[in-house]
Protein backbone atom coordinates (compact mmCIF):
# COMPACT_ATOMS: atom_id res chain seq x y z
CA UNK A 1 0.00 0.00 0.00
CA UNK A 2 1.49 3.24 -1.05
CA UNK A 3 1.16 6.61 0.51
CA UNK A 4 -1.00 7.65 -2.41
CA UNK A 5 -3.46 4.84 -1.76
CA UNK A 6 -3.60 5.82 1.85
CA UNK A 7 -4.21 9.48 1.05
CA UNK A 8 -6.89 8.49 -1.35
CA UNK A 9 -9.03 7.13 1.45
CA UNK A 10 -11.14 10.00 2.88
CA UNK A 11 -11.36 8.59 6.40
CA UNK A 12 -7.65 8.86 6.60
CA UNK A 13 -7.92 12.58 6.16
CA UNK A 14 -10.18 12.73 9.14
CA UNK A 15 -7.77 10.46 11.01
CA UNK A 16 -4.83 12.66 10.12
CA UNK A 17 -6.51 15.79 11.47
CA UNK A 18 -7.61 14.08 14.66
CA UNK A 19 -4.21 12.43 15.15
CA UNK A 20 -2.45 15.77 14.76
CA UNK A 21 -4.79 17.38 17.32
CA UNK A 22 -4.27 14.49 19.73
CA UNK A 23 -0.50 14.41 19.32
CA UNK A 24 -0.03 18.15 19.70
CA UNK A 25 -2.33 18.46 22.66
CA UNK A 26 -0.77 15.39 24.31
CA UNK A 27 2.62 17.00 23.85
CA UNK A 28 1.30 20.16 25.44
CA UNK A 29 -0.12 18.13 28.33
CA UNK A 30 3.35 16.97 29.25
CA UNK A 31 5.19 20.17 28.44
CA UNK A 32 2.85 22.90 29.51
CA UNK A 33 4.10 24.90 32.44
CA UNK A 34 0.64 25.69 33.62
CA UNK A 35 -1.33 22.99 35.34
CA UNK A 36 -4.66 24.32 34.24
CA UNK A 37 -3.48 24.52 30.68
CA UNK A 38 -2.22 21.01 30.88
CA UNK A 39 -5.55 19.79 32.12
CA UNK A 40 -7.33 21.64 29.34
CA UNK A 41 -4.98 20.19 26.75
CA UNK A 42 -5.80 16.79 28.13
CA UNK A 43 -9.44 17.59 27.47
CA UNK A 44 -8.52 18.36 23.90
CA UNK A 45 -6.57 15.15 23.53
CA UNK A 46 -9.42 13.15 24.98
CA UNK A 47 -11.89 14.84 22.70
CA UNK A 48 -9.68 13.92 19.76
CA UNK A 49 -9.60 10.37 20.96
CA UNK A 50 -13.38 10.34 21.17
CA UNK A 51 -13.37 11.44 17.56
CA UNK A 52 -11.09 8.57 16.66
CA UNK A 53 -13.45 6.18 18.39
CA UNK A 54 -16.28 7.49 16.29
CA UNK A 55 -14.13 6.96 13.26
CA UNK A 56 -13.74 3.38 14.38
CA UNK A 57 -17.53 3.20 14.81
CA UNK A 58 -17.33 2.73 18.58
CA UNK A 59 -19.94 5.28 19.45
CA UNK A 60 -20.75 4.17 22.95
CA UNK A 61 -17.14 4.23 24.07
CA UNK A 62 -16.66 7.58 22.42
CA UNK A 63 -19.52 9.12 24.34
CA UNK A 64 -18.54 7.45 27.56
CA UNK A 65 -15.17 8.95 27.10
CA UNK A 66 -16.56 12.37 26.60
CA UNK A 67 -19.00 12.12 29.47
CA UNK A 68 -16.93 10.41 32.06
CA UNK A 69 -13.53 11.73 31.26
CA UNK A 70 -14.16 15.18 29.99
CA UNK A 71 -17.20 15.69 32.09
CA UNK A 72 -16.24 14.20 35.39
CA UNK A 73 -12.59 13.36 35.63
CA UNK A 74 -11.29 16.61 34.29
CA UNK A 75 -13.55 18.54 36.59
CA UNK A 76 -12.16 16.51 39.43
CA UNK A 77 -8.70 17.43 38.25
CA UNK A 78 -9.48 21.08 38.17
CA UNK A 79 -10.80 20.85 41.73
CA UNK A 80 -7.67 19.06 42.75
CA UNK A 81 -5.52 21.74 41.16
CA UNK A 82 -7.36 24.41 42.97
CA UNK A 83 -7.41 22.71 46.34
CA UNK A 84 -3.72 21.90 46.28
CA UNK A 85 -3.01 25.42 45.20
CA UNK A 86 -0.72 24.07 42.54
CA UNK A 87 1.39 26.80 41.01
CA UNK A 88 -0.65 27.94 38.10
CA UNK A 89 1.35 30.81 36.79
CA UNK A 90 3.96 30.51 34.07
CA UNK A 91 7.70 30.36 34.77
CA UNK A 92 7.20 27.86 37.51
CA UNK A 93 9.47 24.88 37.66
CA UNK A 94 7.00 22.16 37.04
CA UNK A 95 9.58 19.84 35.53
CA UNK A 96 12.70 18.15 36.78
CA UNK A 97 16.05 19.07 35.44
CA UNK A 98 16.45 15.48 34.30
CA UNK A 99 14.47 15.69 31.13
CA UNK A 100 16.92 13.86 28.91
CA UNK A 101 16.76 10.45 30.62
CA UNK A 102 13.00 10.72 30.79
CA UNK A 103 12.83 11.57 27.13
CA UNK A 104 15.12 8.69 26.36
CA UNK A 105 12.97 6.29 28.32
CA UNK A 106 9.87 7.53 26.57
CA UNK A 107 11.57 7.27 23.23
CA UNK A 108 12.71 3.75 23.94
CA UNK A 109 9.20 2.75 24.81
CA UNK A 110 7.93 4.38 21.65
CA UNK A 111 10.48 2.54 19.53
CA UNK A 112 9.63 -0.72 21.19
CA UNK A 113 5.88 -0.49 20.95
CA UNK A 114 5.74 1.14 17.52
CA UNK A 115 8.41 -1.18 16.23
CA UNK A 116 6.62 -4.27 17.44
CA UNK A 117 3.35 -3.00 16.03
CA UNK A 118 4.96 -2.41 12.67
CA UNK A 119 6.61 -5.78 12.50
CA UNK A 120 3.54 -7.59 13.79
CA UNK A 121 0.80 -6.05 11.71
CA UNK A 122 2.58 -4.59 8.68
CA UNK A 123 -0.14 -3.04 6.54
CA UNK A 124 -3.17 -4.87 7.87
CA UNK A 125 -6.35 -3.00 7.01
CA UNK A 126 -9.29 -2.13 9.14
CA UNK A 127 -12.24 -2.72 6.91
CA UNK A 128 -15.94 -3.65 7.02
CA UNK A 129 -16.60 -1.18 9.75
CA UNK A 130 -20.25 -1.38 9.00
CA UNK A 131 -22.72 0.60 11.04
CA UNK A 132 -20.92 0.53 14.25
CA UNK A 133 -21.48 -1.33 17.43
CA UNK A 134 -24.85 -0.77 18.93
CA UNK A 135 -25.19 0.18 22.57
CA UNK A 136 -27.56 -2.73 22.89
CA UNK A 137 -24.85 -5.23 22.02
CA UNK A 138 -22.51 -3.65 24.46
CA UNK A 139 -25.11 -3.69 27.18
CA UNK A 140 -25.88 -7.33 26.57
CA UNK A 141 -22.28 -8.36 26.54
CA UNK A 142 -21.54 -6.30 29.60
CA UNK A 143 -24.19 -7.97 31.64
CA UNK A 144 -23.79 -11.46 30.24
CA UNK A 145 -20.35 -12.46 29.21
CA UNK A 146 -18.49 -9.74 31.14
CA UNK A 147 -20.70 -9.61 34.16
CA UNK A 148 -18.03 -10.71 36.63
CA UNK A 149 -15.42 -8.16 35.55
CA UNK A 150 -18.24 -5.66 35.57
CA UNK A 151 -19.05 -6.45 39.19
CA UNK A 152 -15.38 -6.38 40.07
CA UNK A 153 -14.96 -2.98 38.52
CA UNK A 154 -17.98 -1.71 40.37
CA UNK A 155 -16.44 -3.04 43.54
CA UNK A 156 -13.21 -1.26 42.71
CA UNK A 157 -15.16 1.93 42.24
CA UNK A 158 -16.82 1.49 45.59
CA UNK A 159 -13.48 0.84 47.23
CA UNK A 160 -12.03 3.88 45.53
CA UNK A 161 -14.94 5.91 46.73
CA UNK A 162 -14.50 4.87 50.33
CA UNK A 163 -10.75 5.17 50.05
CA UNK A 164 -10.97 8.63 48.57
CA UNK A 165 -13.24 9.79 51.33
CA UNK A 166 -11.11 8.27 54.03
CA UNK A 167 -7.94 9.73 52.66
CA UNK A 168 -9.23 13.14 51.93
CA UNK A 169 -11.05 13.53 55.20
CA UNK A 170 -9.26 15.99 57.36
CA UNK A 171 -7.57 14.36 60.33
CA UNK A 172 -7.49 16.02 63.66
CA UNK A 173 -4.16 17.68 64.37
CA UNK A 174 -2.21 16.43 67.37
CA UNK A 175 -3.09 19.59 69.21
CA UNK A 176 -6.75 18.95 68.70
CA UNK A 177 -6.36 15.38 69.84
CA UNK A 178 -4.69 16.57 72.98
CA UNK A 179 -7.51 18.94 73.56
CA UNK A 180 -10.02 16.16 73.10
CA UNK A 181 -8.22 13.85 75.49
CA UNK A 182 -7.99 16.63 77.96
CA UNK A 183 -11.73 17.19 77.84
CA UNK A 184 -12.28 13.46 78.35
CA UNK A 185 -10.19 13.37 81.46
Amino acid at each position, binding site marked *: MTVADWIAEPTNWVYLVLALVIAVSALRV*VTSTNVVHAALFLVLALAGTAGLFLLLSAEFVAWVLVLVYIGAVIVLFLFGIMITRAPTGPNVEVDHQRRAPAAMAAFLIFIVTAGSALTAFGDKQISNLGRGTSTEVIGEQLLQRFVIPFEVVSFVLLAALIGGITLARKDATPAEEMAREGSDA
Partner: protein
Amino acid sequence: MLLNQFLILGALLFSLGIYGLLVRRNAVMVLLSIELMLNAVNVNLVAFEAFLQNANVGGQIFAIFVITVAAAEVGVGLAIILMIFRNRTSANIDELDLMKW
Protein backbone atom coordinates in the same frame (compact mmCIF):
# COMPACT_ATOMS: atom_id res chain seq x y z
CA MET B 1 -7.40 2.53 7.27
CA LEU B 2 -4.35 0.77 8.51
CA LEU B 3 -4.42 -0.82 11.91
CA ASN B 4 -0.95 0.49 12.49
CA GLN B 5 -1.86 4.12 12.20
CA PHE B 6 -3.90 3.76 15.39
CA LEU B 7 -1.36 1.60 17.12
CA ILE B 8 1.44 4.05 16.44
CA LEU B 9 -0.67 6.95 17.60
CA GLY B 10 -1.33 4.92 20.75
CA ALA B 11 2.37 4.31 21.14
CA LEU B 12 3.05 8.01 20.74
CA LEU B 13 0.45 8.90 23.36
CA PHE B 14 1.82 6.29 25.70
CA SER B 15 5.41 7.53 25.31
CA LEU B 16 4.36 11.09 25.89
CA GLY B 17 2.54 9.90 28.97
CA ILE B 18 5.64 8.21 30.21
CA TYR B 19 7.68 11.29 29.54
CA GLY B 20 5.24 13.32 31.54
CA LEU B 21 5.14 10.77 34.28
CA LEU B 22 8.89 10.86 34.64
CA VAL B 23 9.46 14.53 34.24
CA ARG B 24 6.66 16.25 36.08
CA ARG B 25 7.21 17.45 39.63
CA ASN B 26 3.65 18.26 40.44
CA ALA B 27 1.64 15.25 41.49
CA VAL B 28 -1.47 16.46 39.73
CA MET B 29 0.41 16.71 36.48
CA VAL B 30 1.78 13.23 36.97
CA LEU B 31 -1.78 12.05 37.26
CA LEU B 32 -2.62 13.86 34.05
CA SER B 33 0.18 12.00 32.31
CA ILE B 34 -1.18 8.75 33.60
CA GLU B 35 -4.53 9.61 32.12
CA LEU B 36 -2.76 10.13 28.86
CA MET B 37 -1.29 6.68 29.02
CA LEU B 38 -4.59 5.11 29.88
CA ASN B 39 -6.05 6.88 26.94
CA ALA B 40 -3.41 5.40 24.68
CA VAL B 41 -4.49 1.99 25.90
CA ASN B 42 -8.08 2.81 25.05
CA VAL B 43 -7.08 3.78 21.54
CA ASN B 44 -5.39 0.43 21.10
CA LEU B 45 -8.30 -1.51 22.51
CA VAL B 46 -10.82 0.11 20.28
CA ALA B 47 -8.59 -0.16 17.22
CA PHE B 48 -8.07 -3.86 17.75
CA GLU B 49 -11.79 -4.31 18.29
CA ALA B 50 -12.42 -2.67 14.97
CA PHE B 51 -9.76 -4.76 13.33
CA LEU B 52 -10.94 -8.09 14.68
CA GLN B 53 -14.69 -7.47 14.29
CA ASN B 54 -15.37 -9.70 17.25
CA ALA B 55 -18.96 -10.44 18.04
CA ASN B 56 -18.68 -9.98 21.75
CA VAL B 57 -17.07 -6.53 21.47
CA GLY B 58 -14.51 -7.28 24.20
CA GLY B 59 -12.25 -4.42 23.18
CA GLN B 60 -14.87 -1.76 23.64
CA ILE B 61 -16.04 -3.20 26.89
CA PHE B 62 -12.52 -3.23 28.22
CA ALA B 63 -12.08 0.33 27.10
CA ILE B 64 -15.09 1.13 29.26
CA PHE B 65 -13.56 -0.75 32.14
CA VAL B 66 -10.35 1.19 31.70
CA ILE B 67 -12.23 4.44 31.76
CA THR B 68 -14.00 3.36 34.92
CA VAL B 69 -10.85 2.27 36.66
CA ALA B 70 -9.19 5.49 35.54
CA ALA B 71 -11.94 7.43 37.19
CA ALA B 72 -11.48 5.45 40.36
CA GLU B 73 -7.76 5.93 40.17
CA VAL B 74 -8.07 9.65 39.74
CA GLY B 75 -10.39 9.79 42.71
CA VAL B 76 -8.03 7.93 45.01
CA GLY B 77 -4.94 9.57 43.55
CA LEU B 78 -6.27 13.04 44.10
CA ALA B 79 -7.29 12.11 47.62
CA ILE B 80 -3.74 10.96 48.33
CA ILE B 81 -2.30 14.10 46.81
CA LEU B 82 -4.65 16.13 48.93
CA MET B 83 -3.48 14.42 52.07
CA ILE B 84 0.16 14.77 51.20
CA PHE B 85 -0.43 18.39 50.46
CA ARG B 86 -2.01 18.87 53.85
CA ASN B 87 0.88 17.28 55.61
CA ARG B 88 3.68 18.85 53.64
CA THR B 89 2.09 21.88 52.03
CA SER B 90 3.47 20.78 48.71
CA ALA B 91 2.30 18.46 46.03
CA ASN B 92 5.74 18.08 44.55
CA ILE B 93 6.48 14.48 44.06
CA ASP B 94 10.27 14.74 44.22
CA GLU B 95 10.06 15.90 47.77
CA LEU B 96 8.49 12.61 48.66
CA ASP B 97 11.45 10.36 49.30
CA LEU B 98 10.30 8.43 52.33
CA MET B 99 10.99 5.19 50.55
CA LYS B 100 14.67 5.92 50.78
CA TRP B 101 16.96 3.54 52.74
